[in-house]
């Protein structure tokens, strides 16, 4: 059940401005240069990225039409799902009505897009209707490919010792229950997996392991539980310092790390998982090389492992209808799986009137809401420039952030970008990204959700 707040944030802001807060704003901010246009702009997907773009463009454009295609009534704050699955938050806390963030004047189409005809600048919808555009922003996020793990479906999450924080908010709650059931049993083996593809919030599988370790240690029976981490490649995280740190910490906390294993099948009733050994020389070992067509290989060696609890991380890609469109990458590491954009300007590499933002884009890192915060002003600036026939001036640095929860109650504020092999880009000089701290945890627990909603409203 969702509660309706007594006063919405927008109403509170209105009260604030009538009390004079608005007068604190410099005039330039109030009348940020708007562009007069007749253009038809379509935004596909109204999650973190699409909603932020709708709000930003609604403020900057006069005339024209902005259409947001988003089938869901509820907005999900996905970064909160790890806290739900770890038993720290209630599920309710992560949900708000989309209508709360929808800017006035934007045409909200509550349907799924089913196809993109980029040559004819046309979107097809579930209803069979077509939407024509002059400019398109693709922000449809990620598709969870549970079907690539034989025997696995998202409906299994919460049953037979299976957890998966990614499945949905219900899946996150059921993951919490599955972990609790395992803890209550007093012993047994837990397997934590990682995916052989890029995933949203690449830290989430690690965070789930760390918070579960916290709970195991708090139970006073840590030695009765065995914990394995099965990684498809050599690394556990893209940022090199964090990668080394997590490996060392797993070793210290008695996690049995095994590399080059990909979860290939699951037998829920027997509580057995099959892992394909992909080997150091395999192309699967790179996070960006796996494509669905190459997923299954004959004669690939595999091992069967028993478990009492397993955390499943599904392979991920752009949604099928994006994959089937002309907009998908046709060569390079993201071919066939992710949107083909310039990773700095976020403009499509072949269709200049198209931009990509959020999880859907082919980029070496960046599948986080924190990246959306950095990408949204870049897409806004560049789209407006292209609408005026100019070259895109703004560049995305690849900024991404992951409050790496290393236990329930502590975290590291890891922020980095494309440059210098993913060097740190700390926002606060007084918080060292290599320190575990309570303050970083408080940010995750209390501050990031407000900051996220400000991003949705185009304010941050």
């Amino acid at each position, binding site marked *: 059940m969702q509660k309706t707040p007594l006063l919405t944030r927008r109403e509170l802001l209105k009260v604030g401005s009538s009390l004079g807060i608005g007068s604190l704003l410099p005039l330039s*901010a109030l009348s940020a240069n708007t562009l007069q246009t007749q253009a038809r702009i379509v935004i596909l997907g109204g999650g973190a990225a699409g909603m932020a773009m709708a709000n930003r463009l609604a403020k900057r454009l006069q005339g024209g039409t902005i259409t947001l295609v988003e089938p869901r009534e509820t907005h999900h704050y996905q970064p909160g799902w790890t806290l739900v699955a770890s038993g720290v938050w209630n599920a309710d806390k992560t949900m708000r009505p989309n209508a709360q963030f929808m800017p006035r004047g934007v045409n909200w189409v509550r349907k799924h897009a089913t196809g993109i005809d980029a040559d004819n600048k046309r979107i097809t919808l579930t209803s069979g209707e077509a939407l024509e555009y002059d400019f398109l922003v693709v922000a449809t996020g990620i598709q969870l490919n549970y079907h690539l793990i034989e025997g696995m479906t998202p409906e299994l999450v919460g049953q037979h010792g299976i957890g998966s924080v990614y499945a949905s908010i219900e899946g996150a709650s059921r993951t919490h229950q599955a972990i609790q059931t395992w803890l209550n049993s007093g012993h047994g083996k837990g397997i934590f997996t990682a995916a052989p593809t890029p995933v949203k919030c690449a830290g989430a599988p690690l965070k789930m392991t760390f918070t579960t370790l916290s709970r195991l240690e708090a139970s006073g029976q840590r030695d009765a539980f065995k914990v394995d981490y099965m990684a498809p490649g050599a690394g556990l995280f893209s940022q090199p310092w964090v990668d080394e740190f997590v490996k060392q910490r797993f070793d210290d906390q008695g996690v049995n790390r095994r590399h080059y294993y990909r979860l290939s099948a699951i037998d829920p009733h027997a509580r057995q998982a099959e892992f394909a050994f992909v080997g150091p020389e395999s192309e699967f070992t790179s996070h960006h090389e796996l494509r669905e067509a190459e997923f299954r290989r004959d004669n690939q060696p595999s091992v069967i492992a028993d478990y009492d609890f397993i955390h499943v991380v599904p392979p991920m890609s752009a949604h099928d209808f994006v994959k089937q469109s002309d907009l998908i990458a046709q060569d390079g590491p993201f071919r066939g799986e992710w949107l083909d954009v310039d990773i700095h300007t976020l403009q499509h590499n072949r269709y200049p009137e198209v931009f990509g933002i959020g999880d859907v884009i082919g980029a070496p890192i960046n599948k986080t809401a924190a990246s959306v915060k950095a990408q949204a002003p870049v897409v806004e600036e560049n789209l407006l420039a292209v609408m005026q026939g100019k070259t895109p001036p703004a560049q995305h640095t690849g900024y991404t952030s992951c409050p790496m929860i290393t236990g329930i109650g502590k975290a590291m504020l890891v922020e980095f970008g494309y440059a210098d092999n993913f060097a740190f880009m700390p926002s606060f000089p007084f918080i060292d990204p290599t320190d575990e701290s309570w303050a970083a945890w408080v940010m995750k627990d209390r501050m990031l959700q407000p900051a996220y909603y400000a991003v949705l409203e185009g304010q941050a």
Partner: protein
Amino acid sequence: MTIAGAITILTYALAPFMWLLIIVVIVVTGLHLLAYLRGYQITRYRHRRTTLLALIIGLTAIIWVPWLTHSSLGYVATLFDWVALLGAAAATFLVALLILQPLSYLISFHNDQ
């Protein structure tokens, strides 16, 4: 970040505690008004035991503030952690003092009558 952005974040962050903030403001204002009508002067009135009690309440914040954030004192590790936690303790001390001082004045006023 714009000022509007900062206000947006602050509004969302404080929203769950709005009821508590409103109660504290009402209690503090009410007590001060009541005491003022009976001759209390915030700059003049000092009561050592009340100050000590407020200090103890402030210090307890070092335990319960981490707990309120689903953490524990054991994870307060960096210099910034301690600055933030001591800041929270100081704020708690101040609020406790603002409530306890006029309250103790009112009690002693009542006993003197």
